[in-house]
């Protein structure tokens, strides 16, 4: 049987406010345990929450960016359950009146097609603390520094059909919140966390299968692996005559498998009700209008501009607009060299693989956008060949010179375009390979074509790559035919 995968994602984005959502404590990551927990964060009797206006502003910005309905009135509710790192015994969240309503986000798939993913809602809530199970001799420690950190929970429609689409969607959300400057997107530190709702159904079936929720999958790679694993598990289960049960599962990256955490029957009844300590939040139209005017150019608009202004493919344009920093880098390269296509190729090619290899972010690139732009200029004006350019790029990355020109000069990499010099060099090459020349001249067209490459290779080798490849081709042909 053919199976279709159905995925909906819940993404928790930590908002990068200075202070917590309901108290004045700082939100810096990595501080000594419980040094950033005020009376409110500790759930001290008698303490009360006061809403951080900055968190509301950020949530509204997100709402505007996904073309969502933003209700005039939203309400905080209490989600009641007991857990040691949940100091009040309830999480202040939003239930039936969230701040951000229905919206959507367009994602670009690997084949360049654009898919629209519906966003059901996004709501504000407070994060819990952390339980620490090591170093306490069989007991547990509790760190409440994170308790009360503002979160925006972004819930997608079940519009996603594969693990790859899920990753593309999370990447798009990641890019968006970073463009907006409302979340640092640091997945390793938990600033962006993802729960995946996964189900399968026979192709053509209208109703959804029973879903399992995979909790807290914290990297793009793990999202893909966890979903693929879960899909496989569900298909095998059903094909073996079993049934998927609605449950929460945990992904174990070490074993690359998911395991059951709790079933629907064990699920808490959270007894949501409006939080009586907080008033409903009223959002004025004028406030939204002001925010809308202040929004930066967002990934979808940037992608479209890259396509129309630079003639890039949808895929290239979406890769380059995926992060604000990458897009900015690309635009400087393009401006410096005036060639968008070459700029895109270099940024997505050599530069990306260098950064990947070194584990660096674009902001940390050892080759600046101006350096790369000037390097591309030298390809365009035939000072160096593409192949030599790669050498120059590596030298720039290694810090062997301040500019492409300096390295070309210092290493003597300037392309040889003097036809006399090239002819002399070719004569030497042909003399050294007299036997092959004989064979070539005795062969038919088809065979000659294959052998020609051999001579080009020998010639480039002899010139240490510096000979202008176009001229080499042309002159070599003349000499061999002649």
């Amino acid at each position: 049987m053919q199976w279709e995968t159905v995925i909906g994602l819940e993404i928790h984005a930590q908002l990068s406010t200075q202070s917590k959502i309901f108290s004045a404590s700082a939100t810096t990551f990595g501080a000594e345990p419980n040094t950033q927990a005020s009376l409110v964060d500790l759930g001290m009797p008698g303490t009360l929450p006061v809403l951080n206006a900055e968190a509301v502003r950020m949530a509204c910005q997100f709402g505007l960016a996904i073309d969502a309905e933003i209700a005039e009135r939203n309400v905080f509710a209490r989600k009641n359950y007991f857990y040691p790192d949940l100091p009040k015994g309830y999480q202040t969240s939003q239930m039936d009146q969230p701040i951000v309503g229905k919206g959507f986000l367009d994602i670009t798939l690997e084949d360049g097609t654009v898919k629209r993913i519906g966003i059901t809602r996004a709501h504000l809530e407070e994060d819990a603390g952390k339980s620490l199970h090591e170093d306490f001799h069989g007991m547990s420690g509790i760190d409440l520094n994170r308790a009360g950190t503002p979160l925006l929970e972004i819930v997608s429609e079940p519009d996603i059909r594969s693990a790859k689409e899920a990753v593309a969607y999370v990447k798009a959300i990641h890019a968006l919140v970073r463009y907006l400057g409302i979340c640092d997107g640091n997945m390793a530190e938990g600033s962006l966390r993802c729960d995946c709702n996964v189900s399968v159904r026979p192709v053509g079936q209208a109703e959804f299968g029973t879903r399992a929720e995979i909790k807290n999958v914290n990297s793009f790679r793990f999202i893909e692996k966890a979903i693929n694993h879960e899909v496989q598990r569900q298909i095998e289960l059903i094909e073996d005559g079993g049934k998927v049960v609605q449950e929460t599962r945990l992904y174990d990256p070490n074993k690359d498998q998911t395991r059951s955490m709790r079933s629907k029957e064990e699920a808490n009844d959270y007894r949501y009700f409006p939080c009586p300590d907080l008033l409903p939040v009223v959002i004025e139209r004028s406030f939204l209008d002001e925010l809308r005017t202040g929004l930066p150019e967002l990934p979808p608009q940037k992608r479209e501009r890259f396509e129309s202004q630079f003639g890039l493919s949808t895929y290239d344009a979406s890769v380059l607009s995926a992060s604000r920093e990458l897009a900015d880098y690309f635009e400087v390269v393009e401006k410096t060299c005036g060639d968008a296509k070459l700029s895109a190729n270099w940024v997505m090619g050599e530069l990306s693989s260098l950064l990947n290899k070194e584990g660096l972010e674009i902001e940390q690139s050892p080759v600046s956008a101006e350096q790369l732009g000037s390097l591309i200029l030298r390809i365009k004006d035939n000072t160096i060949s593409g192949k030599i350019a790669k050498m120059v790029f590596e030298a720039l990355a290694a810090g062997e010179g301040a500019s492409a020109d300096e390295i070309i000069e210092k290493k003597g990499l300037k392309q040889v375009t003097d036809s006399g010099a090239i002819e002399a060099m070719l004569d030497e090459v042909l003399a050294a390979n007299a036997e092959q020349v004989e064979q070539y001249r005795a062969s038919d067209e088809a065979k000659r074509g294959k052998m020609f490459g051999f001579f080009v290779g020998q010639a480039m080798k002899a010139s240490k790559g510096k000979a202008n490849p176009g001229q080499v081709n042309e002159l070599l042909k003349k000499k061999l035919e002649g």
Partner: protein
Amino acid sequence: MHQLTLAEIARGLADKQFSAEELSRSLLARIAQLDPQLNSFITVTEDLALEQAKAADARRAAGENSPLLGAPIAHKDLFCTNGVLTSCGSKILTGFKAPYDATVVEKLKAAGTVTLGKLNMDEFAMGSANESSHYGPVKNPWDTSRVPGGSSGGSAAAVAARLLPAATGTDTGGSIRQPAALTNLTGIKPTYGRVSRWGMIAYASSLDQGGPLARTAEDCALLLGAMAGFDSKDSTSVDQPVDDYLASLAQPLAGLRIGLPKEYFGAGLDARIGEKVMAVVEELKKLGATVKDISLPNMQHAIPAYYVIAPAEASSNLSRFDGVRFGYRCENPKDLQDLYKRSRGEGFGAEVKRRIMVGTYALSAGYYDAYYIKAQQIRRLIKNDFVAAFKDVDVILGPTTPNLAWKLGEKNADPVSAYLEDIYTITANLAGIPGLSMPAGFVDGLPVGLQLLGNYFQEGRLLNVAHQYQQVSDWHKATPAGF
């Protein structure tokens, strides 16, 4: 000295008839001597009191002359007081010394009051008899075999017995007004949002409101003026200037329009209480008031609505008492569930557990709409009744309680009969309007309380009516025998 009201103390201190230290020493001695009969204090803060009294005397010597400077008071034991046990009358807060002052405590401190201690109360303010305290029941000074009312029963008993001139209390369904009525005091529950709830340990957040209990309306005006005001730490506090309550006391009652709701004088009311209340109405007429019969048709639904909303909020508010971070923790928990179950099972008393269970049930999936949502709808109807009534009248008048103070233990077997004692007071909390109880006479030697309800932020008008009545009556001056 113990017979002096706050206003008289202010004059005495200003005239240097006595010092704040002398006054505090005298009252502390009286507490030590008499409170064993009443059990109104959970903690007596003698050292703190003397230190504050000396500081007040020094401030006065330096020329300061504010009315509450050196005035001795005490706080209901749910107001957090920095470094002092704040118990809520519960075992679960065993050893909990609050690390901060409630806004009310801070404001009264700044005004120069001297804190004599922390007062007994129904556990987590849940009760109408002050019998649910982990620290034992409080007795009514008018008859120590009877209850003083609750939940601010310690505050009421201590002030009625002249152990101190005034105290703070809180009122969620009548917890200031009902004990005031049962002990011959004046007490006011302000408009919801008038007094900050920061540091006031919550029972039911949307209903709780702090206020004073004293022997006169004037003293309530004095104290409330210092307690009230906007607080940026409480999102439900209202950013509106505080009226000058003392200034409003003197206004004549000519032209005052009083509404008498028929629902307050029907079945269930002790007829002798009704007579006393109507006698006061006659006196108010002589002072120039006019009277109109009115109706508050949704009052009959108030008790069921209250006993859904208050326990629902309480079930969530009390979740933080889990044995993890502060207060009581059970011995040798074997795992997390055991820690929760036994800490809470052993730490909470029966009435608190009953309300947590009721509230948990009311909020449960499948019941929420039928109970919580329905109760909120009733709440809106009750509020609308008042809004309509206040178009025609300035104050609504009736009895504070349907019955006189009952015997200790009398209603323990039947919680619902105790819940019904709140029938006249609960509506003000549901609507968020201010309510005041004042002495209206005695039946069989037991005090009768009269309640005045006002429109939003009309505390000044309520205090004014009570004060004017107290200028022509003596009920509030009566002292319980033996005190």
